[in-house]
């Protein structure tokens, strides 16, 4: 009887392991499909080639999964068979302020660094068929908030040596901030238009970049990517983030960073068994004395 119970227990245990393995495998398949831009959930937006993703160049993902190409790929070779440009696997770079001429030939400098909020840079061309969809879409004022309600939209083409200002003026809505600037294409390593770069001005850094085949796809990819990255209204941890722990890690890093604790900070190497914050002299680590005054020279 005892042997029978033991055998039954082992069988149940094996079945439990099998079920857990199957669930894990299922989750892996769903995650892989999600990374490829396929969302099987009910009510999911139409799928397309996923080329825009926040932090795609952080090195966290494999190029094959995220639509990026290896870091050593030449700029001109980053154009895929579909004619769309893929971001490279380099770390995301710093933001650059924009300087160029308007379609009317006036001079313009547009700040990207040090400004509050996000700026979506749309690198377009007057000659490409795919770009026409974006030129048309940006005529509608409500489409200009595709990067977020408070995000600035700046449309860039190559400079007057490569693009006809008259042709740009014909396509660009007068209410749209439009610059002709080959320097911007170089600064942001844009291989071909259309290409989109999302910049967080408060941190002066690029937070995502890539291409999209249509405005609808750009809108869908941007909203998903921003929600995943914790930007914008309604940003929250998704089930996928919870499973992978990505957002949790980011939040912990952000909290430590906000507290002034970075890699190598002495507090990270303290013995947790010692009494925190209290020294023999009765002064706390933060420099706050018992009398309530702050001794900044004691901080360290």
């Amino acid at each position, binding site marked *: 009887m005892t042997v029978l119970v033991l055998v039954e227990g082992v069988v149940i245990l094996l079945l439990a392991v099998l079920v857990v393995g199957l669930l894990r495998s299922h989750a892996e398949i769903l995650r892989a499909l999600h990374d490829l831009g396929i969302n099987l959930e009910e009510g999911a937006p139409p799928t397309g080639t996923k080329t825009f993703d926040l932090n795609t160049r952080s090195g966290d993902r494999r190029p094959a999964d995220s639509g990026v190409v290896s870091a050593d790929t030449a700029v001109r070779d980053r154009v895929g068979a579909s004619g769309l440009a893929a971001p490279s696997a380099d770390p995301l770079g710093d933001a650059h*302020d924009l300087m160029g001429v308007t379609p009317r030939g006036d001079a313009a400098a547009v700040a990207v660094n040090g400004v509050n909020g996000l700026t979506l840079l749309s690198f377009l061309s007057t000659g490409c068929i795919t770009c026409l969809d974006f030129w048309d879409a940006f005529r509608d004022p409500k489409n200009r908030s595709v990067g977020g309600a408070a995000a600035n939209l700046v449309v860039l083409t190559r400079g007057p040596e490569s693009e006809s200002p008259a042709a740009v003026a014909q396509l660009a809505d007068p209410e749209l901030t439009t610059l002709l600037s080959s320097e911007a294409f170089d600064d942001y390593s844009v291989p071909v238009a259309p290409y989109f770069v999302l910049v967080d001005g408060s941190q002066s850094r690029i937070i995502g970049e890539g291409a999209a085949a249509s405005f609808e796809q750009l809108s869908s990819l941007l909203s998903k990517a921003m929600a995943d990255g914790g930007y914008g209204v309604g940003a929250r941890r998704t089930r996928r983030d919870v499973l992978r722990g990505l957002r949790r890690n980011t939040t912990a890093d952000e909290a430590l960073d906000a507290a002034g604790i970075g890699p190598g900070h002495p507090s990270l190497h303290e013995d947790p068994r010692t009494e925190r914050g209290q020294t023999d002299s009765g002064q706390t680590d933060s420099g706050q004395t018992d009398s309530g005054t702050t001794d900044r020279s004691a901080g360290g």
Partner: protein
Amino acid sequence: MARLAAHGLSCDVPTGWDVRIYERSQSTVDAPASDIPMGGLVHPTMHAASSSLPPSRGDYGSGYVERMTATDVFVCLAEFDHEAGATTMFDEGQPRTLRSADFHPEAQQRVIPGMCGTQRFFTTNGRALCLYVVLGSWVRRQALVPAVNAFLARIEIDPR
């Protein structure tokens, strides 16, 4: 610091600032009984602001000044017909520094509560110009004026 130049005006672009140097289209139709274009001759204008400038603005910043926050500043340099420089309204010499006492809420083109402005008409290098500056906060004008002065110090106006 990058430098922006057009239409004989140039300036350094401070970090976080938007700058435009533009010239409006001149009418191709002459005013009645005159060889002056309808609406007058056009001249260059420089707009600089400590936050994003909208694509459409009036020459004295309407369209932007209404959106300014308490920490924003707006600088406008608008050129006039050079003959206007001969009138007593124009002083000789480009203003390089302003004092907080130069600003007043009533000096705005259109008074916006809480904000203040100042205006200087001057001639330099044979050109007649108007410098118009708006501060986003009358109360914080002493903190905002140094940013304006740092910008003014780096404006260059070419001879006509």
